[in-house]
């Protein structure tokens, strides 16, 4: 048999390697660090249609991720979808009249909330509401409208 000390060292290294791999999977692959300390502030926005928006979808301003969607629910009094956005700490100079739109990254990509800064002096705070919103473009709806316009136009001149 081998030197017992060598065995101890190699088993110790093996266990350490295994735990390090597990840690890497948790931190680097699942990105645990981002969730450990929820900081920043939450704002609400109401949309008529959120399309394929999901919890954890990014919130972007000028293409930069400034936060994430933390909750989605249906408000049965307003008949609208209520989306809660958590804006990261450090982005606390977003004007009150900022517009929130739901965009799609590419044709098949995931959907995200895009914020476009307004010009007001007051800034968004914890629990404030973004009032200017624009719903997601639902592809079926757009196609339906397109086809409807097309047929209306082509049948128009004849009659």
């Amino acid at each position: 048999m081998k030197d017992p000390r060598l065995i101890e060292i190699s088993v110790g290294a093996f266990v350490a390697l295994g735990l390090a791999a597990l840690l890497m999977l948790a931190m680097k692959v699942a990105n645990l660090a981002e969730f450990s300390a929820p900081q920043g502030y939450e704002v609400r926005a109401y949309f008529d249609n959120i399309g394929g928006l999901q919890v954890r979808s990014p919130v972007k301003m000028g293409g930069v991720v400034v936060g994430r969607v933390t909750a989605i629910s249906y408000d049965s009094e307003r008949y609208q979808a209520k989306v809660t956005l958590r804006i990261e700490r450090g982005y606390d100079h977003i004007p009150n009249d900022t517009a929130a739109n739901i965009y799609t990254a590419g044709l098949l990509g995931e959907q995200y909330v895009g914020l476009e800064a307004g010009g007001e002096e007051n800034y968004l705070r914890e629990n404030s509401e973004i009032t200017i919103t624009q719903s997601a473009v639902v592809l079926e709806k757009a196609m339906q409208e397109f086809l409807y316009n097309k047929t209306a136009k082509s049948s128009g001149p004849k009659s």
Partner: protein
Amino acid sequence: MIELLAKLGRASLGVFERLGRGHLFLLAVLGRLPGLALRPRLLLQQMWSVGVQSLLIIVVSGSFVGMVLGLQGYNTLVTFGAEESLGVVVAKSLLRELGPVIAALLFAGRAGSALTAEIGFMKATEQLSAMEMMAVDPLGRVVAPRFVAGLLSMPLLAAIFTAIGVLGGYFCGVGLLGVDEGAFWSQMQAKVTLVQDVVNGVVIKSLAFGLVVSWIAVFEGYDAVPTSEGVSAATTRTVVHSSLAILGLDFVLTGLMFN
């Protein structure tokens, strides 16, 4: 006709007999675990031969599986212009299925067969009987440390396999094929969840596989017919049965976890 029926009956009784013996054996081994805590050196020795010595094949296979996933995933995704999702594809398929399953299959071939052969030869050369003669319990002294070593090594090996696989996919996708590095990691981090993917996939699945493979390996060895043919048949049975058990169990666990 009667002879045929008798044969059938004998065969199925034999199956039930082995099944029952296997479960009673597992209970007996589990009963020896507290005694093992008093002799950690035995466990250490087995961790070395079961875990550390399997490391090379796990690392090499992991990197190749990850690289192949990177290549194939890229070829499929690039037709949709979605090659940024390569990180998600590689990480999810490794974490949920390929990591634990392939690591367990390799483990069964590399360590399970060795365990069976070792214990089987101990039995064939009457070392186990000799231990009993000296009032040393072979279940506690020989079987339990090997069983626990297999059970503990399996999740560690699966985690190493998966981590190396992700790095292999990264090397192929980002290094060779030119996927954007930021998109590779950020899409992966946005879509992979700790509990659903990492804990369910790598930790729980591989613990279950480790239990099944080590159990089958030590039982087949302990239950082997004490001849050369008997030991060789037992080793073959270990590899075949544990591979089938891993794949079947994986189907059931996937059904339970990801619905």
